[in-house]
């Protein structure tokens, strides 16, 4: 007959079992007591809230049944964890197995090496005026997708603003429930974290000194990536990310007050909306002329020159500004709750 090891609690099996059962489940009787108390509290609040409209019976006959259902749920939960894990392992296994059936990476006769990629590689330079084929693909051949992708960034920033704006006082309203119920909660306040000086920590000297040296170089490098997007690896998205990182570093070192001297909400709005609208106009022109067979008036220039490749250079610049703004906006919003 097997015997329980003395140090069973510290074995891997025990830890795994504890993990499966959820972190340290309380004893059944404790949990039961807690549920009973909670159910009673809930019934009490329900009664208080509904007192003026209807007469609930004094004791809730449902309470015991509800209690039963909740303890039952705890038992199901263990199965749930186990089954969830088995399912995940199965999906992982299936996907890995799937890779074995896919065409080998880089193989010559893979279906992806067809006339499409051939044309991108061989005629890309001639048709779009770029040396960096990737840029030609995303900004000319598949320009519409990239325009959509830039809008994803924009709407992401909008949603973060919505997320950080929330109402206070729901709990209070539920408890007191004095005002007329048709009132839609005007009594509650919209709140957001507002600016406070504590976000401007006195930056330390090392960070500030290094930032002074590095930030201009980062900005220059970001601009270089933006402007050379059609010639060398890079382009709007990567250059914008570098610019945004530079802004964030400057902000970390010198605080919001100094950053806002040259980059506040107004400038942010102007750059964001301006670049997106200009981008939209350029893309509308490009798609419209392309679709209707109207020759584009923008010359492609000589291959390899900095001022070449037609519409790609301005688009890269605008995408870069949009990306930089969004990155900084995410940082600023999560850091202090507003711009």
């Amino acid at each position, binding site marked *: 007959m097997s015997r329980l090891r003395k140090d069973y609690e510290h074995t891997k099996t025990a830890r795994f079992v504890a993990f499966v059962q959820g972190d340290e489940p309380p004893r059944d009787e404790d949990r039961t007591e807690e549920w009973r108390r909670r159910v009673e509290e809930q019934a009490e609040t329900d009664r208080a809230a*509904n007192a003026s409209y209807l007469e609930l019976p004094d004791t809730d006959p449902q309470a015991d049944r509800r209690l039963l259902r909740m303890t039952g749920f705890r038992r199901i939960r263990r199965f749930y964890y186990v089954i969830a894990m088995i399912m995940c392992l199965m999906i992982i296994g299936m996907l890995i197995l799937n890779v074995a059936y896919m065409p080998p990476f880089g193989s010559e006769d893979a279906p992806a090496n067809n006339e499409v990629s051939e044309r991108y590689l061989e005629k890309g330079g001639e048709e779009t005026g770029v040396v960096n084929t990737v840029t030609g693909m995303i900004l000319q051949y598949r320009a519409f997708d990239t325009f959509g992708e830039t809008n994803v960034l924009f709407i992401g920033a909008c949603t973060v603003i919505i997320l950080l704006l929330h109402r206070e006082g729901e709990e209070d309203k539920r408890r007191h429930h004095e005002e007329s119920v048709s009132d839609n909660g005007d009594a509650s306040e919209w709140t957001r974290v507002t600016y406070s000086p504590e976000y401007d920590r006195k930056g330390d000297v090392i960070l500030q000194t290094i930032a002074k040296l590095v930030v201009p170089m980062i900005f220059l490098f970001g601009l270089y990536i933006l402007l050379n997007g059609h010639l060398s690896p890079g382009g709007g998205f990567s250059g914008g990310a570098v610019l945004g990182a530079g802004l964030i570093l400057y902000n970390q070192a010198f605080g919001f007050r100094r950053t806002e001297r040259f980059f506040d909400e107004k400038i942010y709005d102007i750059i964001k909306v301006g670049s997106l609208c200009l981008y939209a106009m350029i893309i509308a022109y490009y798609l419209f002329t392309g679709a209707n067979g109207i020759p584009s008036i923008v010359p492609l220039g000589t291959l390899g020159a900095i001022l070449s490749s037609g519409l790609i250079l301005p688009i890269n610049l605008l995408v870069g500004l949009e990306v930089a703004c969004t990155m900084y906006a995410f940082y600023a919003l999560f850091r202090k709750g507003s711009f």
Partner: protein
Amino acid sequence: MEWIRNFPFFAILLAMVSGPVSSVLPGRHARRVSFLVVITSGLLSVCTLAYVLYTGEAFTYQMGAFPAPFGNEIRAGVLEAMTATFFCLIMLLSLVGGYRFTAVDIAEDRENLFYILINLLLASLLALIYTNDLFTGYVFIEINTIAACGLIMIRGWGRNLLAATKYMIMSLLGSGLLLISIAVLYGITGHLLMEPMHGAIVDIVEKGTYTEPLTVAVGLFCVGIAIKSALFPFHSWLPDAYGYSTCSSSAILSSLVSKGYIFLLIKFFYRVIGTDIIHQIQVDDVLFVFGIAGMIFGSVSAIQQTDVGRMIAFSSVAQIGYIYMGFGLNTEAGMIASIFHILAHSAGKSLLFVSLNGLTGGNWENANYRKLRGAAYRNRIAGVGFAVGSLSMVGIPLLAGFTSKVYFAQAAFGVSSTTKQLVTLVALAVSTILNAMYFIGQTINIYTPLQRTEGRPRVAVGRAMWTATVLFILLNLLLGIGSEPIFRWIEEGLRLFG
């Protein structure tokens, strides 16, 4: 090329540009812009519909200077134009119907954010409908998801944030699976546009190479869309998201957002994979089983709810089940019934949410069924709207829901397998009875007169809401009585798909 062929592109671009423009406008101007954009897009779609019906064939529109397998493309046929028109109409009516609650639920200086979300949601829906490229579909699914998430939490209560978190987690899982699926499909076909991809897939199936990755990719695509459109076992995010959002959000989310994804799935079945191959790898049977399960369990969950908002939300799970059951039949009649049900459900569900908000005054604390007793006497038009929506969902003749159920039943008789036939008919019957149990029950509940009415909310009906409700009711009647032309359009659209 005729000038009118630019219209789908104009509609998408207009909606996309209006987003950034709205972000610097004050709330009331943003609202005007948004209404204008929805109306204009609707009109452009009507023109497109008239044009494709006149010419009798679909057209593709090259997005940019490069033709099909190299550049992006959109495509407009009868089905696309009809769905786009219908979605614009529903969106407009939902916005008008929830107009009063939007003003109350959303802080004034943030109102423009709401309309940015609406504009970009419209853009993404139109792009999902018109796209002829799987990856473009994915990009706009992302926009759609983030916009929907914003719409859920814009009301700002803790409960909305929780619902949005749930939605985001589930929805991102769905997006991830979709992306893997598209990547696998690209790996085995080398194309992203629908027609060349279809050609490559037919080749694959003939040669017998890469059939395993193809099955996996189709499976992942279906699961991804199923999660995002709340098919039965993946519906846990749905009740909170629909039940507690602001009126317009609930109406738009329940009637449009999930339908956009489903429309992409229809395109995927017909234009990318092909219905024969779908049948060959038996994805249709799987969808059939889950659809049937959704029809039953969605309704069972709805019966258990005490909160009427959540009840309506759970009934969406059942209705989505109907749509997937139609896919599972894998006949043309089944697909037509499903597409008709998409329209019928959109019209009915948005009507239900708008009128429920009319009954409760937009406050979910009043949505408990006890507090709603007699509510129809306090707000008559909302009461009528709720009754019509409920009856349509149950499937009472003359209303939209009845027609779609008849189509489903007819489609069931056309299936070769007797088991499927029987299961479909029994599930339709059981689900109708379950629907009746809660919807008719609620309708009787709100029409039960009360002795004491003091302390009950008395909601003033705005003119906007009155108009929207009446138009919604008319739309439901129209779909119920005059379904014949729409049926023919769907048939024509599917023929153009094939």
